[in-house]
């Protein structure tokens, strides 16, 4: 307010102009952002002291892999045990409804994907055989690989839940596909 500069002489259609100094805080933002930018460029692209985006990704992946390493690998025995654990089955059921039901039906009776409640299996009906299909998918048939997205624990839980669906022969089931399971 104090340093009101005199008006310039020029008048454009009645519009006059002051020639005030630039506010200091504005100059501060201007210079700070320029110095920051120069420093940023120097750090990442001249000194190459920081990782590029793929370098960051590799580091992040390693970190996540380390966190997941605590998970025990799946086995027939473990999956059969989970199939008797109500807490695991409840979580497996939720995973199934959210991710699998769209293709395999709410009861597992099959629609786009095969019937999971009959005695026929295309890739084997044993706990680890089912686990493998869920985890790694069957690309040629359009079964997605779920372990990447759902994580190992949820894949185990949903496999255990599938073991309980086996042989329930849900009503309206899709016609059998694959081979009858060898007992």
């Amino acid at each position, binding site marked *: 307010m104090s340093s009101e500069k005199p008006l310039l002489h020029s008048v454009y259609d009645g*519009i006059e*102009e002051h*020639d005030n100094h630039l506010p200091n805080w*504005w100059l501060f933002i201007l210079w700070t952002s320029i110095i920051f930018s120069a420093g940023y460029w120097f750090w990442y692209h001249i000194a190459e002291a920081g990782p590029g985006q793929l370098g960051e990704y590799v580091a992040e992946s390693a970190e996540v892999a380390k966190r997941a390493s605590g998970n025990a690998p799946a086995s027939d025995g473990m999956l059969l045990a989970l199939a008797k654990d109500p807490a695991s089955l409840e979580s497996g059921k939720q995973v199934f409804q959210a991710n699998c039901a769209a293709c395999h039906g709410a009861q597992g009776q099959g629609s786009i994907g095969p019937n999971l409640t009959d005695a026929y299996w295309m890739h084997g009906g044993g706990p680890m055989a089912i686990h493998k299909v869920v985890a790694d998918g069957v690309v040629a048939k359009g079964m997605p690989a779920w372990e990447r997205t759902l994580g190992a*624990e949820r894949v185990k839980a949903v496999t255990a839940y599938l073991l309980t669906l086996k042989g329930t022969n849900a009503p309206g089931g899709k016609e059998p596909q694959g081979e009858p399971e060898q007992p």
Partner: protein
Amino acid sequence: MHQQRIIYDDTTVRRFIIASVLFGIVGMAVGALAASQLAWWQANLGIPYTTYSRLRPLHTNAVIFAFVGNMMFAGIYYSTQRLLKTRMASDLLSKIHFWGWQLIIVAAAISLPLGFTTSKEYAELEWPIDVAIAVIWVVFAINFFWTLAKRHEKNLYVAIWFYIATIVTVAVLHIVNSLALPLSGMKSYSVFAGVQDALVQWWYGHNAVAFFLTTPILGIMYYFLPKAAERPVYSYRLSIIHFWALVFIYIWAGPHHLLYTALPDWAQSLGMIFSVMLWAPSWGGMLNGLLTLKGAWYKLREDPVLKFLIAGVTFYGMATFEGPLLSIKSVSALGHYTDWIVGHVHSGALGWNGFMAAGMFYWLVPRLYGTKLHSPKAADAHFWLGTVGILLYMVSMWISGVTQGLMWRAANPDGTLLYPNFVETLLAIRPMYIVRFVGGSMYLVGFIMMAWNLWKTARAGKAVDGETTVVVEPPAPTPVAEPVPAKAPTPGWVQVVTGRPLVFAIAILTVTMFLGWAKPVRAVVLMGAIIALGEFAWIVTRRDREAGRPSWFGLIEGKPLAFTVLTLIAILIGGVAELLPTIMLKQAVPAHGQAQEPYSPLELQGRDLYVREGCYTCHSQMIRPFVAETQRYGDVSRAEEFIYDHPFQWGSKRTGPDLHRLGGKYPNLWHYTHMMDPRATSPGSNMPPYPWLAEQRIVVKDAPKKFALMQRLGVPYSNADVDGAEARQKAQAEGITADLAAQGVQVAWDSEMVAIIAYLQRLGRGPQDLPASPEKSPAPPNRLPAATIASEEGR
């Protein structure tokens, strides 16, 4: 020496205002409909022409080019004549400009819902319309510069600088980004592919915001705000600094739309740091607007015009703070692809553009019709309705964007995704979509009230044209600020070229350029040199000013040609520095990408349908290098995977999931079911159904034509490929129909459904992902169906 009476052409101004208000209502109504479709999918109405993915481009184009475009022309035509004390040079050109622009808008409004689109955002219009835009823009430019030549005012006021920047830059952006080879009357393919296309597109896209939605409106602010406030502009030197900084820096900022994509790191970093450096220059404009009101703040209370203008400038300040913030890589990692960006653009579009337009209209219309505003009360109500509407819109989009961004990356303790199902993250933000719809609708209602108010005002008065008198003949002794070298010993152009600000700017830029290749030690020396040069420039400037030497800026303000050329150079530097190396890279990429196989004929046809339906408005095809993304979507996207993508389809928003690794993820039947009824496979989805794809047929004979055109664009199809395209197309299609038929679904082999499934099944799959074909089939591109059939048989 005699007096000359000048009558301004205000008829054109009135026409542009009417068009702006009219198309503003249409554009915003389409926006409100599109917003409702995201909350309630049934609002897509089940027909192609009203489906979200076709309406969204219509909304953006209508609001940007029809609403703001016409508003900008009204403001420019009105203020330019008065600032230069002359009538527009040619009434005929003004007429051609007006009617030509409206024709373009009508053509856009018809062609976009019909599915004629290039899929390049804010540049979706197909090539004949692009040509028309270029022609009309040139007409406008001729009219404008001719008027400059006829002016009765020696120097150019700051508003005119911004208009000049707008005219030259929009021309450059539009022409480069629209370069394409036509296939037919309404279909063309971008000459750029993949990364190059993405960079050119966002160089354009960001600067459409900069030079279509910002610079002309700043010019308008510099005229109408001091007029309405009856106060002098706060600072002339601030206007010089923020103008030149803005035009030079803005053009570099485009790559901030592509952070963490397959764009090279260095280009991303340039986009980020130049966006950060834009903060102060942008706020320079805001300051010059706000501080002009210094000592007259009380006027805000009674004058609706000032309310709108000041709120508009304030929203500009908010948006231009949020923009640099979002351009910081780690913030972009969270905000990109989410509604945060949608909220950001709307704080600019509704707050800055919409309110500046309203302020200008409320001030102009009474003057253009020689009367008073019909209802200042209604204008007040419009202001509050609009403000609350914008706030609801912005806040809901912040919440929605941050929520979804956090949900996408949320992880369990063991590092797996907390919300693996995409639809969960969509359902979480649905309430915010409803709030947004309400906010947007309130804004629209306010806008319609304005239309009514302006209409009543116009009816109460009658059209009057402004006029002035000027003294002509002997070299006009017009009052000019800076001493002008009319009879200076050195010619004008030498003074321009040897002006100290220019010499120092060039020196500093030249030194900076070498920074791009420097090693650390040399870089430190260069940076020292830049600082020394800057310091030196500052001292020299100060000394010159104290000595009362004529200002170089004052000199170029009297020379429109020099001013225009300098502006053009300022905007070209950033464009060339970023685009050229990336386009040069084109030669380098295929060396890595030899494993890439071009699309098969059917996949290419399907890709065109993906473009036609506007899938890119909701789906990205770019998986960023974050674990949360690779867990959800698959491997990180790489630049060489897109070398045959004319145009690129990376998208900018994920209302649905990323599709880059969709190929082979689901069976054909899943895609069929999903297209017919998205909720059958993805309960809770808000995607519109696309049942017409099963009914409509592809143009079978287009396959070889498309191949031949792609050949000309550099895609390595052989002549035999072109000749065999139809047969290959049929063979692949029959593979898919056979697979679907085996599961009880009958579709024609040449239906659009089959083509789009072929394309979707191809996405993100290099040949390296595919199992080796056991038998040598004569049609190698039969990859996926062949694999499917093989496994069907192997059952």
